[in-house]
Every structure is written in C-alpha cells, then in structure tokens.
C-alpha cells in the first residue's frame, strides 16, 4: 500500500511542558489508522500539527506526492467542532466545499446524497441552530468528506453519538477506506477502534506506547489473563509459573500471564490446593490495555515488564 503521510520524530512543547516527544508513524492509502490515548495524551495536538494549525518544534510531517499540506485534499473533523449558528445547512456545506475548491454543482449533489444517507433528508434549508447535537455532528461529518478527500482526519468522530448514528458513521468510514481514502482516526472508544482500525498508535503523556497492526498488537500485547474466584493467598498465586502480576479484589484474583503461555498446559500445571470456585481464561482487551496505560499500571515500552 502506498504511504500517504509520514510523521517523523515529532516534538512539541507548550511553555516548559513537553506535550509531544518523538512521535513517528505512517498512514497508508486505503487504511484506517487509529491514534489512541487517554485525555490529554497529545492526540489532538498531533493532529493539529499535521493539519498545520500548529507548528511542531521538532521533527517533520511529509505528505507524499505533495510539497506542502494539500489542504484541498484533506478532510478534517476536529475534536472541538461547531458550525455557524444562523445559516442554512446547505449554505455552510457549500461554503466549506468552496473553500476546498470543489465544484459547487457536484458539492450540492453530494450534500443532498449524504443528507439522505444520514437521515437528514429535507433539512438542507433548515438553519443550523435548529439542529440537534447529533444532527449537527452529521452535518460536520458531511462537511469533512464533501470534497472527496484523499486523506481524512477524524478527531473523536464518535463522541456524543447514539449507537445508531455510530454505526452509520462506522459504515461510512469503512466505505471511504475501501475506496482508497487514507484515514487517521483518534478515539478513546476502544470497542469502535477495535472493530474499525487496521493499525493503531497508542500514545500516553506525549509518547508512543504501542504502534502496529491490530493483529500484531493483539498477539503481542493482548496476553491471556486468568480470573479465579476463590480464597487464595496473593503470594501463592504470584509464585505460579508464567504469571506476570496478580490483582486481587476480595475473593477474585486476576492473574496476568506472560506472552508465550500455552493456556492448556498452564491450566494442567495448576497446583491442586488452589481454591477454585470459578475460573475463566481470556485475552486482555484493547480496552484494558488502554486503561492500564492510562492509569499507569503499565510502563512505556514493553508492556508488563516493569510489573513482572
């Protein structure tokens, strides 16, 4: 796949605080790349640097095939977003298309198509202030893709949407990627990212934590964990083989297992004196990885090493 955007060793400081440090990743044609991270991790700052709304202190941002930021080929849905209040939906869509140098006639057709698709048929002459929040968000989404961008940046596209609208958005984003649009998406809704993204870049406190394809990340980081209900000493559990760390809450203990554990063999070797009322083994979800990182249970670099 053709690489569309390369971000290399990006760094940025506000006053004395470093908000971004050595951020490097690529976005390819037709893929959905997700930037994940807790609030304040630096996702929006990274995106604003890519968009040229802020300027990085260090590093480079390269749009391949273009010298400068190809503003007319980028669609952008910022995290903090809104629309002019007292104008008609169609007027603002056409204005934003015009700013991208997109032919107005085509823009009008596409606007009507998308309004219909997003269940906003007949709303084109309604004033923006009469729309609900969700409707407004749909209009903003249409505005970001009306000019058929080659490159689409969506900062928290799902925030504030109901599940039905989330699905419509998800489907549309997927379709755009299939048609060859390179999509960079930031979110902290892990389940949605897990379903959508081809690759992900996890960031915390301005630094890279994980970067790779969804499958790589899952095999590498989403280790098995074993949940046991029963009264057991924490130290006993910690002495078991292949256990990285143990979390205990009353009678429930969660054992985080090492990467290359074979669940079947591991269960076979559990000591007989262990109290087991209930036992299940499953993989750590992206959600849990995320929370572990956000709450600082996992360090940077290799997951789990520091807690082993």
């Amino acid at each position, binding site marked *: 796949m053709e690489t569309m955007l390369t971000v290399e060793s990006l760094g940025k400081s506000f006053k004395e605080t470093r908000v971004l440090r050595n951020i490097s990743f690529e976005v390819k044609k037709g893929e959905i790349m997700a930037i994940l991270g807790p609030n304040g991790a630096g996702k929006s700052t990274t995106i604003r640097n890519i*968009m040229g*709304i802020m300027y990085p202190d260090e590093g480079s941002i390269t749009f391949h095939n273009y010298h400068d930021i190809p503003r007319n080929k980028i669609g952008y849905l*910022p995290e903090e977003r*809104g*629309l002019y209040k*007292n104008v008609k939906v169609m*007027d603002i869509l056409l204005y934003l298309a015009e*700013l991208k140098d997109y032919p107005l006639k085509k823009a009008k057709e596409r606007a009507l198509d998308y309004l219909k698709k997003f269940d906003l048929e007949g709303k084109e002459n309604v004033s923006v202030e009469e729309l609900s929040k969700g409707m407004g968000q749909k209009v903003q989404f249409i505005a970001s893709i009306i000019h058929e961008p080659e490159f689409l940046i969506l900062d928290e596209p799902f925030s504030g949407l109901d599940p039905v609208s989330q699905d419509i958005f998800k489907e549309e984003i997927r379709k755009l990627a299939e048609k060859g649009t390179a999509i960079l998406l930031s979110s902290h809704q892990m389940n949605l990212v897990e379903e959508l993204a081809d690759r992900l870049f996890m960031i915390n406190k301005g630094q890279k934590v994980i970067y790779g394809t969804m499958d790589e990340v899952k095999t590498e980081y989403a280790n098995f964990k074993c949940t046991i209900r029963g009264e057991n000493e924490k130290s006993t559990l910690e002495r078991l083989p292949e256990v990285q760390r143990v979390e205990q809450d009353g009678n429930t203990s969660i054992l985080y297992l090492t990467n290359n554990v074979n669940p079947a063999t591991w269960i076979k070797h559990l000591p007989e004196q262990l109290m087991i009322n209930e036992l299940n083994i499953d993989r750590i979800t992206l959600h849990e990885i995320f929370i572990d990182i956000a709450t600082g249970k996992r360090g940077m670099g290799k997951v789990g090493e520091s807690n082993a």
Partner: protein
Amino acid sequence: MRNTLKIAKWEIKRNIKNKSFLIGLFLTPVIFILFMVVPSLFSNDEEATPTNVMVNDQLNVYTELEALVDQSEFNWNLEPTDIRESDVENELNESEDTAYLFIDERALGEGVVPVYMSDEIDSFFINQVQLLATPIQAVQMEQLGVSTDELAMITKGITFTEPTSEESSSIESGGGMTTKELERMVPGAFAGLIMLSIVFTGMAIFQSASDEKKNKIAEIILSSVAPAELMQGKIIGYFALGIIQTFVSIALVLPVLSWRIDIPFMEYLFVPELAILVLIALLGYLLFAALFVGVGATMADISTAGNFQGLIMMLPFAPFIFIGPVFGDPSGLMAQIGTYIPFTTPGVLILRLSLLEEWPWVEIIIALAILAISAWLCMKLSGKIFKVGILMYGKNASPKEIIKWLRA
C-alpha cells in the same frame, strides 16, 4: 488571495441574509433622518405665521422703522394704518398674530408707545419691538435741538467688542456658511460618514471573530485556509458591508437633506479633496478593523469582555476628546497632537481639513504615513493574536497571554 476573497464573500452573504444586519442597515439612516427632522417639527416654523405689525404713525418715522425691521430679519409684516385707538379692541378680537403701535406725541412727551397685541402672539414680540425705540428717540432728540452729528454719536451707543482679525471676518455674521466653507464641509462630512459607518461595521468584525470562537468552527475553516487569509477575508468582507451601509445611508439621507436644506450637495461632494479624505477614512478603517479582529479573537463572548478589551473597544471614540480644541483652533497644538496619534488621526484630520481653508500638506503626509504604518503594524500583531486566540475555545485571553503571543 483567492481564499481571502472567498471568505470575504461568505461574510457578506452571511450578513446580508441575516435579519438583524438588514434591520440595522435601514434603521441607521432612518434614525439619522429622524434626528434631523423631528426637532424641526417641534420648533416654530418661521415662514408659517409672520406677525402683522400695524403702525399708526404720526411722527413720520415709518420709513426708518421699515428699514430697521428689514435689517433685523424679524418675521414681521409691517404696515401703516389709520385706525383709531378706540377701535383697536374690536379689530384685535378678529385677528391673530397682530399688534398695533400708536406712535404719536405721547412717544415724544412721555416716552411711551402704546402696543395692542392679539392674544396669540410670539412671546418675544414685546422684546423685539423695543428695537423701534431708536428712530423715535432720534425724533425726540431732534426736537430737543441736538445736532445731527451729536445725534449719531448718541444713538450709536457704546458696545464692547473684540478687535477682529481679517481671517475670522470671513466667517459671515449672518449665520449662514460661505460657499467656500461648504465646499470643504461637504466632502469632510461625507468622509466622516464613511469612517463612522465602517468603524461601526468594524465592530461587527469583532463580534464575528468572537463568534468563530464561540461556535468552534475556526478549526474547520483553518483546515482549508491559513489564519492570515481568514483574518484578511473578514476585514475585506466587513469593509464591503460598511460601504454598503454607507451607500444605503446616503441614498436614504441625501434626498431628505436636499429637501430640508437648500444646498447643491452633489456639486460640493465630488471635488478632488474628497479622494484624500476618503483615503484617510480607509486607512482608519484598516487600523480599527485589524485591532478589532485581533481583540475579537481573544474573547469568548462580548459579555465576558475584560477591562482591557473594553478599553480597546472605546478607542474609535478617542477623537471626541479633540473635537472641542479642534473647533476652537484647527491648526492649534491640540489639533496637531490629535493628528499624530494613530487612533485619533482619521477623526481629527478629517475634522481639521473640513475646517481649514489652507491644507497643511506636510502634516497631512506625515499623518498619512503614521496611519499607514500603524495600520500595517496592527495588522501584523493582530495576525499573531488571531492565530492563537481563535483556537482558544471558550476562554478569554489575559493581557499577559496576549503579550506572550505577540513575542512568539
């Protein structure tokens, strides 16, 4: 530049479609007209009811009286009459705004002239009529044997007066303005009007910049255009709106003006001096527009404006401080100081040039240079503030932060 024009076009379109802008567009000149017309409706219309003054003259002073009344511009209808004093009551009952004067031996002997007035008569009449004492006094003195020369001396009386220089003597005492003054005043007033309406529209820029923040659309727009283009687009857009406002105002006010006042405005308006006056107004607009767009970007909402921002909003009204001194002496020290302070330059300079007969070209050129440079500087600085401020959603910037952005 293309993006700038697109944004300018959008701002114009958005406002033209906006009801409150449209209402303001027509309401401003209408209010202006009301201010002009309403007071004159309440004041007494002089031509409507002149006072009839009937004179029963037995001392042969009627000609002198007539000359005196002509000179004084009283709204009187002076007429001789032979009516007898005993019949006056009946006559007065049937007439309005009429007075009868009986100038006879009593005036010479007792110094009293009986005046019979109808019920409804100008309240100033009894004061005005005192003027007629002079010719009667003259007759009185003639009879007493005073010579003509002595008489002239006495009747001239003594007045306290300031020796007048030649310049100010050109200002006619009659209350009207000379053609020359009008030639200067009309373009000046026109430039002042342009300046005023674009400064007011300039304030809308400020609203627009802070709306961009409030509505959080700035980042979407900035993904397509550079901050400088957005800012310039707004400045140009609102300039066009200001011009529209000016022309609508003129189109509405001018017919009323020429109906109320008998002056050939058009002839006086299109003189070469107008170009310079309009240039001053234009530069003034650029200065204030740049200022407002920058300040607007630092504020989340007008209602939350801090003292600092409020102070800047008052700057366009700074020339009012100089109005008094400039009228007093258009080439005086205060007038010159006002000319060289960028924020008061446009207002003071336009006012001065409307008053001065000889234009101080050196001062004009220096002032224009100061104005142009400060407009450019203001544009640069506002650009810096705008770039950062417009993305600070929901927050007002403190002066400290603003200074930091300026240094960046």
